[in-house]
């Protein structure tokens, strides 16, 4: 079997998602080691412009451009990937552990009758065999798993698991025309996109998260301003979401989203286990809390013990100044 890697690329608003560039970077490291090929798979409608960008990151760009693929659906996208995996028989297929990836990859695994490791955060192919790193039990335990040789396992990775290195490969662009039909049992009535210009919370490098200590929805304005300055996103604890101050989509934690930004700042968040399980893989954690005994300080790298209403306006100005200096 070849050691080729095939990567399903996700796009948003006409651009390649950051997580896909991360996967391509890691995938290329893999194929360089084994002198094999890296395939980027781009599925959509009128996406050929995007394909150009991918050429720099991969050896081959497989483009499937068809109006039926304009919006993601598991039925059409799985049909495309199934055909491509059968045609190119890669060693492994990588995808992102996003809303789309979590929906698509298991369906694809079943179609191909291959196994799947999902929500991984690392992969090691330096020593004997390929080992996949995956947090379980909300990050309390890290497991290293392997897949038996012989079929093409699917692996999905959490966004922000790898860094992106700009490449200047000149991958070959291959247009694939395939048979694709929609499953008539599924009828999309409406798609509503709101605030989609902002980076997806799971991909954000910067998250400022508000807890019940924010006291009310109106106070999240300053967090929004800080997130905008930093090009990041506002997160919320469950207490905040349950109080309807913020949408569920912003919830960080066990029953919300798992995030791992470069910088997470928790404001008025107590740091309950259910919350920290969703953010403790953040690279740097800062906590602002007036209670010096708040559990969040056990997870944080840096802490400020103070009233957040004193801190936030100053923090906003300082971050703004720092950004302007760069």
């Amino acid at each position: 079997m070849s050691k080729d890697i095939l990567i399903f690329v996700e796009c948003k608003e006409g651009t390649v998602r950051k997580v896909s560039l991360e996967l391509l970077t890691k995938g290329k490291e893999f194929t360089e080691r084994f002198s094999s090929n890296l395939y980027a798979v781009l599925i959509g409608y009128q996406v050929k412009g995007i394909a150009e960008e991918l050429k720099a990151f991969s050896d081959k760009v497989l483009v499937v451009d068809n109006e039926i693929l304009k919006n993601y659906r598991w039925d059409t996208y799985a049909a495309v990937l199934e055909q491509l995996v059968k045609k190119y028989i890669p060693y492994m297929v990588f995808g992102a552990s996003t809303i789309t990836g979590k929906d698509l990859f298991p369906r694809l695994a079943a179609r191909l009758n291959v196994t799947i490791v999902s929500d991984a955060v690392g992969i090691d192919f330096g020593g004997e065999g390929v080992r996949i790193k995956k947090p379980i039990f909300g990050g309390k335990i890290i497991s290293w798993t392997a897949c038996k040789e012989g079929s093409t396992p699917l692996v999905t990775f959490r966004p922000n698991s790898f860094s992106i290195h700009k490449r200047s490969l000149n991958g070959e662009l291959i247009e694939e025309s395939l048979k694709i039909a929609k499953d008539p049992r599924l009828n999309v009535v409406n798609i509503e996109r709101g605030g989609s210009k902002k980076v997806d919370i799971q991909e954000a490098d910067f998250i400022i998260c508000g807890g019940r200590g924010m006291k009310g929805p109106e106070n999240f304005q300053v967090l929004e301003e800080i997130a905008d300055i930093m090009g990041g996103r506002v997160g919320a604890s469950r207490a905040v979401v349950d109080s309807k101050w913020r949408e569920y989509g912003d919830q960080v934690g066990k029953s919300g989203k798992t995030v791992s930004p470069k910088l997470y700042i928790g404001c008025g968040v107590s740091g309950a286990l259910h919350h920290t399980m969703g953010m403790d893989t953040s690279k740097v954690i800062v906590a602002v809390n007036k209670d010096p005994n708040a559990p969040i300080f056990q997870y944080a790298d840096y802490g400020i013990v103070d009233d957040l209403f004193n801190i936030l306006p100053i923090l906003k100005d300082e971050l703004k100044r720092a950004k302007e200096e760069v």
Partner: protein
Amino acid sequence: MHILVFIKQVADTEARIIIKGDQKSLEIENKYNINFFDEVAIEEAIRIKERIKDSQVTVCTYGTKKAVEALRTAIAMGADRAFLLDNTNLENHDPLIIAKILSSFAKREGFDLILCGRQAIDDENANIGAITAEFLGIPHVSAILKLEIMDEKKVRVESELEGGREVVEVQLPALLTTQKGLNEPRVPLITGVMKAMKAAIPSIDPCSLGIAKEDINTDASRVIVLSYEPPKKRPPVKIIEGETPEEKVENLMKVLKEEAKAI
């Protein structure tokens, strides 16, 4: 309407988990719950049953004998029947195999709708629902936030998209995975608990569902756990000192720039 609900018993978030000496097995403190997202699935099934006459809710889990506790809780909440697909000697990490067992059970029981949680909070996978749907040849929708039964043949659901929402009409039979926001799971009433204590919960050998033992035993798994390790520990927190809020922020900015290189 016949609704099947797949649930899993998982370690409580607070449970202590110790990696054993061989680094390949875990010792989990005896604190277990129904997987949070599966509770939402049970709740939704019961709400449908309360609305639509002649509905039946069947709950099932593939797990250890201990998982009967979770099934009893489901009955206490209002489910009609429960089955344990006993995994004694068949303990398996491969989602493909678990889905094979669940889909075989579903085929045997028959169903109009299958509900299960969007993911298990122990293995952090989100695979079982969609794989099972594919094995059954039925459509699925992941992580739904709203469910409306249109008629016996169709449901309308709302689910989360990257940066948005989608409304889909799906023909039954179908499988839907549930998440927070769909409903608030009820706490069982004492009468429910009494009923659940008495309920007979049949235990089924997965091999009796027409699957060959060698296809589902522990060796059949194509995912192998090599080792477990504890997560990297962070150094203790550095509390940023300062006389005034201004000073504290200034000092924080300094460490974020120079030490953490986070800005």
